[in-house]
């Protein structure tokens, strides 16, 4: 058989493959074209503008929680976008920290040899992850926080906080100009502690003598800022919220919407993180621990040097996807009116402008960007912890 005889069917197959792909592209292009034509017609009929010109128009609606200055009469839709995005990042950021702490505690408790502890942790995980998050958000908001006393019966917390069904009002820290010195001292203390640890490590490598620097490091990190705080004349005061007849004035206001969303997100995601942590710790072979003990490592060092690094390699990838889920799930705050990106932008802005295509596209692009950045960081981490086979 000659090469040419071989070539013919292969070329025919390749031609067929190209034809299929071109056909697919043509179909999709036709559908897309049809959709755009329809959209243009429908929009023109409803007198809705297109394009991103609305970005600089004035909004005219209020947002209940703003981290940056914002006013309904002067701010633009672009400003509203940033307010919403920052609110999303705020609840997601704090939620990630809380969910991680709770998730690690529950995950480790589930492995406890104490039967009661592991059963309670198991109960927590099975209950919370089998009930929809939206239901849990509504529960915290409508059943728990809304049943707090009204303004008149406000609970006054020790230290001057006020709690009622309009939210939690805490003393707001007010920083005097001298406070930068305290922050500088804190950074300095952290840097010094790291240097100390490096020095101790090098010392141990050279002489074998183990130096415990924990207390010195703590002293540097806590003591330096405290000293700076005292020296600069205590540049910090608190604005205590004031319980008036019709509202609470001043103080740091934590909205019930924010609190309900934060509690529900952290508690729900913690159940999943607990499972991730449990799987990660179980993935470390027993032999590793026995080998570390045989080498004479103390229990703390076995954990720090042998167990945790190997468990983390298993834990971190699924943990990251749980973080991403939490960020995406924070959009459920729309159900209770938490002003996150989806509520402000895909809700209010969309209703006012009617420009569904642009608004939804921007909203999706933001979440996509967050996802992409996170998975990129994930891949970098994965590459740095891959086991080097020797």
């Amino acid at each position, binding site marked *: 058989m000659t090469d040419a005889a071989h070539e013919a069917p292969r070329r025919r197959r390749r031609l067929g*493959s190209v034809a*299929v*792909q071109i056909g*697919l*592209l043509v179909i*999709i292009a036709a559908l897309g074209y049809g*959709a755009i034509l*329809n*959209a243009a*017609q*429908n*929009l023109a*009929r409803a007198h809705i503008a297109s394009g991103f010109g609305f970005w600089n128009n004035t909004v005219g609606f209020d947002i209940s929680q703003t981290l940056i200055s914002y006013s309904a009469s002067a701010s633009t839709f672009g400003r509203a976008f940033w307010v919403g995005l920052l609110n999303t990042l705020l609840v997601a950021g704090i939620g990630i920290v809380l969910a991680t702490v709770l998730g*690690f*505690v529950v995950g*480790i*408790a589930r*492995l*406890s*040899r*104490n*039967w*009661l*502890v592991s059963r*309670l942790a198991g109960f927590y995980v*099975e*209950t919370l992850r*089998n*009930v*929809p*998050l*939206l*239901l849990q958000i*509504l*529960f915290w908001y*409508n*059943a728990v926080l809304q*049943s707090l006393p009204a303004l008149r019966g406000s609970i006054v917390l020790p230290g001057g906080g006020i709690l009622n069904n309009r939210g939690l009002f805490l003393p707001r820290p007010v920083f005097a100009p001298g406070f930068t010195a305290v922050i500088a001292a804190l950074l300095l203390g952290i840097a010094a502690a790291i240097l100390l640890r490096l020095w101790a490590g090098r010392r141990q490598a050279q002489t074998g003598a183990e130096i415990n620097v924990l207390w010195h490091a703590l002293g540097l990190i806590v003591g330096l800022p405290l000293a700076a705080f005292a020296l600069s004349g205590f540049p910090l005061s608190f604005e205590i919220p004031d319980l008036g007849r019709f509202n609470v004035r001043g103080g740091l206001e934590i909205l019930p919407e924010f609190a309900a969303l934060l509690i529900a997100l952290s508690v729900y995601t913690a159940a999943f993180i607990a499972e991730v942590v449990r799987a990660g*710790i179980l993935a*470390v072979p027993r032999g590793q*621990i026995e080998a570390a003990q045989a080498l004479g490592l103390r*229990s*703390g060092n*076995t*954990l720090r040097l042998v*167990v945790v690094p190997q468990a983390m390699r298993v834990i971190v990838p699924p943990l990251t996807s749980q973080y991403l889920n939490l960020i*995406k799930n924070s*959009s459920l705050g*729309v*159900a209770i009116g938490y002003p996150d990106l*989806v509520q402000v932008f*895909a809700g209010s802005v969309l209703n006012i402008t009617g420009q*569904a*295509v642009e608004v*939804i596209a921007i*909203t*999706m692009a933001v*979440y*996509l960007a967050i*996802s992409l950045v996170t998975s990129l960081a994930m891949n970098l981490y994965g590459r740095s912890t891959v086991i080097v086979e020797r």
Partner: protein
Amino acid sequence: MPMSTIEQRALSDSPRTSAPLSARAGMFGWLRANLLSSPVNIALTLLCIVFIAWALPSLLRFFFFDAVWSGADRQACLASPMRPHPGACWAFVRVWFSYFVYGFYPAGQRWRVDLFFLALAFGVVWLLRLSSPRRDLAALYFFVILPALSFILLHGAPYLGLAVVPTALWGGILVTIVVATVGIVFSLPLGILLALGRRSDKPVVRLLAVGFIEVVRGVPVITVLFMASVMLPLFVPEPLAPDKLLRALIGVAMFASAYMAEVVRGGLAAVPRGQYEAARALGLSYWRMMALVILPQALQATLPNIVNTFIGLFKDTTLVFVVGIFDFLRTIEAARADPKWAAPNIPVTGYAFAALFYFVFCYGMSRYAQSVEARLARGSRR
């Protein structure tokens, strides 16, 4: 506390090997090994007992002993001299129960919904029991016959004497189940196509599949639903604009198939290369190879993951709430807002009832997935 428990687990021998035999025997041995093995352990045990002693009685009191079981309106569930601390108001659930199940589906036609539930349950059991006969026919029934039958039953067909019931009247558990069923019925075939597309050797096909999967999985489910409910009507000529429920269903099918595609991809990767090569050597075409050799193995291997994805989908059906569909959760919210039933214990009662419903379904499915997983593991060890 966390550090000490992890140390205990990681660093000490398990009780099985360390404790002498006599110490493990009997109830006291068990107590000593599991609850009282060290001072930290004793403290933890005490802490847990205190917590349980505090939480359990008040929960039992609220949900059972002090609960109100019958009544016609809020009066029954308010605090009264006879009942100073009323518990859960189950009377509320009893009165609203048929609304929670059927929504506003006309009372005379509700047998159609019951029939749909029965037909669905039959299909689910047939399909999921690993030992049932002719599971290929079960798949045909579940993915082709059942959807057509359900549409005729629920929506109605005047030529068969079934009055049309507009979807605006559907509600409650009916809608939740419909959304979940549509999600699984469409997501599995579409997910398989997307997964095959992602592994295709044609760059255009691969690009389209990867693009769709990653975009849909990268954004919140709510935005996909928003897109389906707000943008879809723009993209089609006005007379063709789908109704509200259908739009939400399209959104659900979209995100469910993107998630399912990744699960199927995992299953495809688990099929050994030799299977592909053997199928090719037998002269099977691509589609016959996939349908007869690869997919049956891939789907069986990944069945637990499919069920777990479905649990996620089932929980996510609650999100249609946000685009204004009266699913089960939304009917609870609507009933809760009725002034006739305005009482402080109503929200907790409603949410507890809903939580119980979702928990029973999701927990049951996850137990099923675990048992299948254990069985598959047994099979592969052989």
